């Protein structure tokens, strides 16, 4: 193992990095931004919001309140009554198909839009 890299290795690495980058940009361009936000608590749709209409919303979850904010075409859970606050740390989301989940409150925030099948992006 004198030479760690051969020329072919470097070309391969270049090709793979290009592939990875282009997959990122390709997805970015097809997936598109979402239009509608659907909020579900315990599998019931409790609120429908539009991503282009900013505002603050309070949702009644199982454990307590979940505060949603829509701003600048994005949505986030900014505050919630739950122990781990994973939903808050999920941060701002705007792509169709993305979801924000607050498990203790059984609250799911789905972004719908351009993509045909927005379900099941994450569990």
């Amino acid at each position: 193992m004198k030479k760690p890299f051969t020329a072919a290795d470097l070309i391969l690495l270049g090709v793979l990095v290009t592939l990875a980058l282009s997959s990122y940009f390709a997805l970015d361009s097809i997936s598109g931004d979402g239009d509608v936000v659907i909020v579900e608590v315990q599998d019931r749709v409790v609120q429908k919001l539009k991503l282009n209409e900013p505002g603050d919303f309070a949702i009644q979850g199982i454990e307590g309140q979940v505060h949603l904010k829509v701003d600048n075409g994005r949505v986030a859970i900014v505050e919630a009554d739950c122990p781990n606050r994973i939903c808050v740390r999920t941060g701002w989301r705007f792509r169709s198909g993305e979801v924000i989940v607050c498990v203790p409150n059984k609250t799911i925030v789905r972004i719908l839009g351009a993509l045909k099948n927005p379900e099941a992006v994450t569990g």
Partner: protein
Amino acid sequence: MQAGRLTTIALLAAVGTALFVAESYVPMPMPFLKIGLANASSVVALLLLGPSAMMTVTGIRIVAGSILVGSLFGPGFILSCSAGLVSALVMSAVKKLTGNLFSVIGISLIGSFVHVITQILVVFLLYVKSPSILYLLPLLFFTAIAGGLVVGWVAGRMVGLMNTLRLH
């Protein structure tokens, strides 16, 4: 000769199993993301002993590792198994066809990419029949590049070490 080969296969399978188990304890942002260090033992087997030894080592480390972790025949096992074997096959073929064109690092990069692609295909066919899993591709590709580089480097060091040890 035959005994030496058998010993090396056993050693590599053991190392691979240990790495497989150790890696299952490393926290990752998503459970399916992995560097795939255990694959280093398969790559070493390919370089030192050839394709059939590699398949043996890969098979043993995945089955033994899954038994120890408790994921035998679960979804994770099916993914590791299919992706591990396909990527081992492709690495063997590439090594056979191109000889010394690629170094260990190149071979392992190809392996980790094939691993990721097989995995996403299997997930798509068996579990999530939705194009939205494509969202994971960039993340998986970049992990595959990082993993391929690390695994290749480690495998190279292991081959060097094993060669010197044999000389003594």
